[in-house]
C-alpha cells in the first residue's frame, strides 16, 4: 500500500464513518457533527484529486456555512430537545433498498469501462483556467446560479421572517 493509497483509505473511511454517523446517530447534533466530518473528508478527496480550490470551497461553504446553518436549524426547531427515535418505521426496507442501490452502483462502477481512464494521469486544473471557464464559457450557468441564490435569499427571507402578529 502506498502512501497515497493509505491516505485515500483513511479519508474514505472517515467519509464513510461520517456518513454512517449522519444516518445512524441518535442525537441530531452529533449527526450534524458527523456530517461535518464527512464533508471534510470529501474535501480531502478533492485534494487527492488535485482540486485544491474545490477542497477550499468545500471546507468554507459546506463545512462552515452549511453545517452552521444546519446546527442553527436544529436548534431553532428544538430538534435536539427531542432525541429522535433512531430510524423511521420503514428502516428494514430502506436498508434493503439502499444496499441494493449500493450494490448496483458498485456493480456499475466495477463493470464499466470509463473512457477517461486512459493515460493514468490526473489532470490538474489551474485556478486561472477555472476562472476563465467560469466567467467565459460557463458564464450563463454562473449567472443563473446567481439568480438561484437570489431566489433562495428572497425565499428564505420571506418565509422565515416573522410577520406582524406572529
Amino acid at each position, binding site marked *: 500500500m502506498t502512501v497515497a493509497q493509505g491516505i485515500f483509505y483513511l479519508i474514505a473511511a472517515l467519509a464513510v464513518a461520517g456518513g454512517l454517523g449522519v444516518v445512524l446517530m441518535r442525537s441530531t447534533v452529533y449527526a450534524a457533527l458527523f456530517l461535518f466530518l464527512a464533508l471534510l473528508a470529501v474535501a480531502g478527496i478533492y485534494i487527492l484529486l488535485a482540486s485544491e480550490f474545490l477542497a477550499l470551497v468545500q471546507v468554507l461553504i459546506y463545512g462552515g456555512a452549511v453545517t452552521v446553518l444546519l446546527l442553527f436549524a436544529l436548534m431553532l426547531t428544538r430538534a435536539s430537545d427531542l432525541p429522535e427515535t433512531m430510524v423511521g418505521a*420503514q428502516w428494514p426496507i*430502506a436498508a434493503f*433498498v*439502499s444496499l441494493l*442501490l449500493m450494490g*448496483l452502483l458498485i456493480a456499475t462502477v466495477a463493470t464499466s469501462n470509463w473512457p477517461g481512464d486512459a493515460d493514468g494521469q490526473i489532470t490538474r486544473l489551474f485556478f486561472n483556467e477555472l476562472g476563465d471557464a467560469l466567467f467565459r464559457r460557463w458564464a450563463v450557468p454562473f449567472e443563473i446560479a446567481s439568480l438561484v441564490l437570489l431566489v433562495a435569499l428572497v425565499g428564505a427571507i420571506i418565509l422565515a421572517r416573522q410577520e406582524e402578529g406572529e
Partner: protein
Amino acid sequence: MGMTDAWLLPVLPAGAFAVLVLFGPYLPRRGDWLAIAAIFASFVLTFPIIADLTSALAEHGEEFVGAANSIPWLEVPGNLELRLGVHVDAITVVMLVVGSFVALMVQVYSLSYMRGDSRYGWYYAAMSLFAASMLALVLADNFLLLYFAWELVGLCSYLLIGHYSHLRSAAEAAKKAFITTRLGDVGLLIAIILLWRDTGTFGIQEVIAAAQAGEIRTEVLTASVVLLLLGAMGKSAQFPFHVWLPDAMEGPTPVSALIHAATMVVAGVYLVARTLPLFELVAGGPELVLAIGLFTAFLSAFLGLVMTDIKRVIAYSTINSLGLMFVALGVGAPAAAMLYLFTHAFFKALLFLGAGSVIHATERQDVNQLGGLWSKMPLTGVTFAVGAFSMAGLPFLAGFWAKDEILVGALENRVAFSFLLLSLPVTAMYMTRLFILTFLGQAREPEVAKHAHDAPLAMSVPLALLALLTLVTGLVVFDQVGRALGFPGGIGELIFLGEPEVFHFDTGVAAASSELVALGIIAGWFAWAVRPELPQRAAQAFRPIHAMLVNKYYLDDFYQAIIDRVVLAGSRVLAWFDRNVVNDTGVDGSALTTGFMGYLLKFQQTGKLPNYALAMVIGVVALALVAFTLKT
C-alpha cells in the same frame, strides 16, 4: 273495366279511408256516405270484372289461368323485386263479390246501428280500410301484397274489435285477436320468404308453377306449407288459434258480422285454397288440413251448446264453419270449400246482424236475459231463423247445399265423414237452442222485451237482403243455375279451371245429413222449448263435461297460464338478468372495480415524506435492475 283494372276495387275504399282520417270531422255526417259510396262502387265494379272474366273463360276455356296486372314497388339488388299487382280469376271473383257485398250491407246496417257512437267517423274509416285491405288480399297476385293486406286486415280487426275502447274487455279482446293471429303470421311470413328463397319470386302463380316443376326442395316446400297453414290457421281461427274469435265479439256487432263471419276469417281458407297445389305436393299436406279442420269443427260444435252470449254462440258456429271449410280443403274439395265460404258469408252475416238487431233493441246479449222476442221483432226473428237453420244445415237453405258438397267430398274418407256426420246434429242443436232462447218462450226480463222492436230501415234492409240470399244462393250448386247466371260449367267448374269439377248432389248423403240435422233440431226443440229444465239436469248430471265446455276446454286458462307463468315470468327473469347481471354486475361492476382499484391505489399517498422518497428509490432500483437484466 276489365280484369286488369281490378286494382281500382281496393283503391276506392282506401281513398275513402284516407279522406275520412284526414278530413272526417269536417265532412257532413262524419263522411259515412263517402265510405258507403266507395264500397258500393267497388261492389258495382265487380260486375264488369265478372263479365270480363266470363268472356275470357269463354274465349280461352281451360287455358285461362287468370289475368294479372302489376307495377314495381320496390327493387333491391340481389333478386328482390317487390311488386304490387292484382290477379283475377274465378276464385278471386267469388271473394270479391262476397267481400264487397257483405261489407256494403254491414256498412248500411251500421248507419243505424252505430248512430250516436262517439267515434262514428272513425268507425267508418276503419271499415273502409278493412274493405280495402280485404279486397286487396283477395286480388293480390303475389305473396307480398297478400301479406301486406293480410296484416292490414288484422289491424282493422284490431281497431274494430277494440272500437269500444273504454271497455277493458274490448281492449283485451282486440289485443288477443291481434297477437294470436300474428303468431300465425310469423309462419306465413317465414313461408313466403322460404318460398322466395327457392324460387326467387313472390308471385303466387309463379311459385305454384315452380313447385309443380319440382324447383323447390322438398323439405323447404314441406316447411313452407306447414308455415303457410299456420298463418291460415291463425287468421281462420283454427284450433289451437281459435281462442281469439269468440272474444272478438267485444267489437260492435256489425263488425263481427263483417270481419268475424263473412270476410276476414275466411282469408285463411282463401289462402289455403289459393295455394292448395302446394299442399298437394307435400306428403300429408291435405291430411293435415283435414285433421285440423275436423278437430276445430268438432270441438267448437259442443261449445255452442253451453254458451249463453248470443254472439259467442254465433262465434263458435263460425269456428265450426271454418273447420268445415278446412275439412273441405283437406279432402281435396276446394270448390266445396269455396261454395261454403260463399254461402256462409251471407247467412253468418245475417245471423250476426240479426243478433245485432236484438242487441240494439234490448241492449242485452246474454240469452238468459232474452226470450220472447218473436212477436216484438218479427222481421228479425224470421231472418234470424233463416240464418240459424241455414247454419244448422236444414235442407234447401244455403248452408245445406254447401255442407252437402263437403260431405260428398269427404265421402271417401270414412273417419272424416263419420265425424262430420256426428257434428251435424250438435250444430243443429245449438242453433236451435239459440233461436229458441232468444226469440221463443217467455221473456225473462219483461221490461227489456217490452221495449224491443224491429230495427229501422237501414238495418232491416240488409237483413232482408241477406236472408233472401241465404234462401237462394245455395242453388248455384246446380249447373243450370250457374249457366243461367252466365258461368259456363257452373260454379264448380269456374273455380278450379285446371280440373273442372262439377258439384255433385248426392241424395244419399243429403238424406243422411238432413235426418241428422232434423234430429238435432228436434232434440234442441225438445230440450229447450218443451222441457227447459232438461239442459240443467243434463248439466248437473255431466258436471265435469259441462264445466269443461263452459270453460272452453280450459284452453284460455291454459294459454293464460302459459303467458303468465312462462312468457311473462320468463321475460321478468330476463329483465332481472339484464338489470342485475348485465348491467349492475357487468357494467356498473366494471366501473366499480376500476373505482375500487383507485381506492386501493390512493393509499400509496400516505402523506409521509419518507414513504415518498422510498417510492422513488424503489423506482430507481427497479428500473436499474430491469435495465441490467435486459443488458445481460
